[in-house]
């Protein structure tokens, strides 16, 4: 149990450390993947629109000024609205966007699981072979063996 706890702790640290570093010292490349160009509706990394160039310059300025990722995103939202974020913030109605896909996947797993269980449980007794067909099958097999 102690080993498992330690392993869990190590894994949590391994995940949390880069996340914290990314929050405190974001890079242009990662923000380009998390921000949408408002004119072409692709992520910034895929856009060469004038506004995308301006946004990249702004992000560079804010990174150099020492802003955190959250602060930079908040500044962008102030000018361009929440639609500028590639993923909606986890708050209010936006939670639906995060929960619905997971709920859908969970529901699909349950449905497939239940269907598979029913299918496996189906025994031949539940669907007995027609005696006439069974006899015919036996005859065919006997003829084949002969």
């Amino acid at each position: 149990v102690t080993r498992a706890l330690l392993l869990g702790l190590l894994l949590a640290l391994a995940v949390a450390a880069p996340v914290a570093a990314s929050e405190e010292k974001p890079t242009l490349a990662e923000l380009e993947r998390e921000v949408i160009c408002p004119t072409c509706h692709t992520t910034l990394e895929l856009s060469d629109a004038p506004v995308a160039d301006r946004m990249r310059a702004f992000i560079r300025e804010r990174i150099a000024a020492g802003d955190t990722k959250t602060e930079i995103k908040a500044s962008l939202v102030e000018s361009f609205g929440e639609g500028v974020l590639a993923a909606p913030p986890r708050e209010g109605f936006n939670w639906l966007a995060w929960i619905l896909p997971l709920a859908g996947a969970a529901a699909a797993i349950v449905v497939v699981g239940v269907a598979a269980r029913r299918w496996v449980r189906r025994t031949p007794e539940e669907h007995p072979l027609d005696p006439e067909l069974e006899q015919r099958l036996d005859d065919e097999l006997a003829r084949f063996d002969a």
Partner: protein
Amino acid sequence: MARRVKIVLQAAAVAVVALLVVLLGWRVAQQEEGRGLDDAVAGGEQPTAPDFTLEALDGDGTISLSDYRGKAVVLNFWASWCGPCKTEAPLLQSAWERYRDRGLVVLGVDAQDFKTDGRRFAERYGLTYPIAHDQDGVTLGRYGYSAFPETWFVDREGRLVGEHIQGEFSEDQLEENIRLALES
């Protein structure tokens, strides 16, 4: 019991799908509204200009199109990074200065732009006419936006008249459409 659960689950699934279809329809209808306006104006109709309320670019309160009912309005959509908008800005300022006493308002809508950039642009070109900042770009879809700059003309009754100019306008185009808006 199992049958009842099954019916409830099926009903829930149908409800979710129906909700998604309604949301999709609403979104498409919003996008189509602007295209409908464009077609109507091109066909000589004078549809009512969709009203909006946006934050003023200078941060001093809000601006609504309906604030200017009774006046003719040149409604110009722009952004500071747009090249042709730089050519249009002095022409719009000049028109505002010459026609404001006759009941014309130039109303700028700065969208898809940093507020600070928009403010710098207004200062640089000495723009004194009212300018709103469309943070979420809500007006763009409603007016059938395709690319900056775009200009509509609204008469004193709040109807769209004249041309929907997509791209940079000429001085003659601006004058002619202002005359139509004032006289309509």
